[in-house]
């Protein structure tokens, strides 16, 4: 317990230090990168609850990330244009209200997708979650009201009481607070009685049913929770970029979130954050060296899957343990 806590704290400290260094050396781009890590790490933490702890290999979490993003984008654009959405109400540009709507929308979507897809398991589940995300992706592309293929620009970052969110460091702190909250929440859940049931679903659903606990209900609960967390990350991502487009719903996004979780370490608390750090670092570093950085990323991923199982945090924990 203690050893992995140390690793978790170290990961967060590293992230904060990087953002602070950006502030000190007047390098706002570094703050943006740190914010991106916090947001993607949070999206990964959401997926990790389902994928890592409960064994639900969802290949469609872009659906939640993207829906959260579009909720933020659509509400903000309506507020900007004073153009009513529904019964004369014209959206909002307050983050807190947007988060509430994002949670509701992604929770409902996860409930719907979960009700259908959790009836299946194994490969079927992987492909069905993928297909549902694609469905939303094509819908976003062909629905012209909110930009279609071109996406939607929100001009300004949404507001938060008492903060100037256009200031990079302030917005980073908002995202960091969310990330820390999500990690704290995850650790509470994993260690709770429900957490025991989650691991039982992953390892032995028949036994769990034999104890009188419905594996389906456990899975559905985790799936909804996981989708909501990833959805909030999506809403923050729209605010970071002040832009949202169908690419946040694409299967590359699902793959990317999954990659973060796996290279960071499946079923480790801060694994997705470490994975996001490595991913963004590679993108920046390799991307600076060659236009074809994803080629090398692919090769590295292959090597990780074939030879370094357990990801960064798993390897660190093992290394410290020995």
């Amino acid at each position, binding site marked *: 317990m203690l050893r992995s806590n140390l690793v978790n704290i170290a990961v967060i400290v590293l992230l904060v230090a990087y953002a602070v260094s950006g502030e000190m050396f007047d390098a706002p781009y570094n703050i943006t990168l740190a914010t991106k890590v916090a947001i993607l790490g949070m999206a990964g933490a959401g997926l990790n609850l389902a994928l890592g702890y409960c064994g639900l290999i969802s290949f469609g979490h872009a659906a939640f990330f993207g829906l959260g993003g579009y909720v933020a984008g659509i509400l903000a654009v309506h507020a900007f244009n004073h153009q009513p959405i529904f019964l004369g109400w014209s959206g909002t540009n307050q983050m807190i209200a947007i988060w509430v709507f994002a949670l509701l929308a992604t929770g409902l979507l996860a409930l719907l997708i979960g009700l259908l897809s959790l009836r299946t398991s194994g490969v079927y589940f992987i492909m069905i979650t993928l297909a549902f995300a694609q469905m939303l992706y094509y819908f976003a592309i062909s629905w012209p009201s909110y930009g279609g293929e071109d996406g939607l620009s929100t001009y300004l970052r949404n507001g938060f009481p008492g903060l100037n969110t256009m200031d990079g460091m302030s917005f980073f702190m908002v995202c960091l607070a969310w990330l820390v909250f999500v990690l704290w929440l995850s650790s509470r*859940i994993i260690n709770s*009685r429900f957490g025991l*049931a989650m691991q039982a679903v*992953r*390892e*032995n659903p028949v036994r769990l049913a*034999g104890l009188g*606990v419905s594996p389906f209900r456990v899975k559905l609960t985790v799936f909804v929770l996981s989708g909501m967390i990833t959805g909030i990350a999506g809403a923050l991502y729209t605010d970071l970029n002040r832009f949202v487009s169908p690419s946040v719903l694409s299967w590359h996004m699902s793959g990317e979130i999954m990659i973060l979780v796996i290279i960071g370490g499946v079923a480790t608390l801060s694994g997705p954050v470490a994975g996001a750090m490595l991913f963004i670092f590679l993108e920046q570093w390799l991307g600076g060296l060659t236009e074809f950085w994803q080629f090398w990323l692919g090769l590295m991923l292959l090597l990780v899957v074939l030879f370094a199982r357990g990801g960064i945090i798993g390897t660190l924990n093992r290394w410290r343990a020995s």
Partner: protein
Amino acid sequence: MTEPVLEARALNKRFGAVVASDQVSLVLHSGEIHALIGPNGAGKSTLLKQLAGETASDSGEVFLSGQSLQGLDAVHRAKAGIARSFQISSIIPALTCEQNVLLSFEARERRIFRFFRPALGNLSSLEAASDYLLRVGLAGREGVIAAELSHGERRRLELAMVLALKPAVFLLDEPMAGLGPEGTGEIRSLLQDLRKEAPMLLVEHDMDAVFALADRISVLVYGKVIASGTPNEIKSNSAVQEAYLGDDI
């Protein structure tokens, strides 16, 4: 005569051309160990699955204390009081012994959907878990990850989980499978202890144990109950000897 705790009436199950259960009826009375024996492939495990609700019967009905379990799946039958162990120890390998038993105990208390308080934070639950582990002879093994247990210890951990459900009926599928003579002896005395809690339907291949423990034995061959009675009646039943015991004993 009092109402049986568990009763199966004319259960049938086919898998294609294979008849797994053929008009199986049996009763289990309070305080009783009812052993189910028969050659491999006779349909014993399938029958347990039908009783536990993991496999739907083609026809027939199961009653628990007079209540029909028609249409209830495994989850709801477990909630109603049917606890079962599996032929291959069914535990959660990633959890510790203590967590395994806690999971079962909290499931029984309907406290699984609690998300915030630590599972290991409730003293009375922890004490209960320790008691169950003590009872199956796993005292002091609370913190050990179940994946690291020996084969015999896994069997006992599963019994502790089943015990923690405080069920109305135990369905035990070969609890002594794969154990040496010493382990068999320990489980045998453990089952004697368990029968105080609830009656038991016991599928077992170890004939010494079956004849020592059982109050009543049913013999299943090709999905059909060919005989049912006290151990002495079964021993002297000619049909049983021909179909089954003749080969083994």
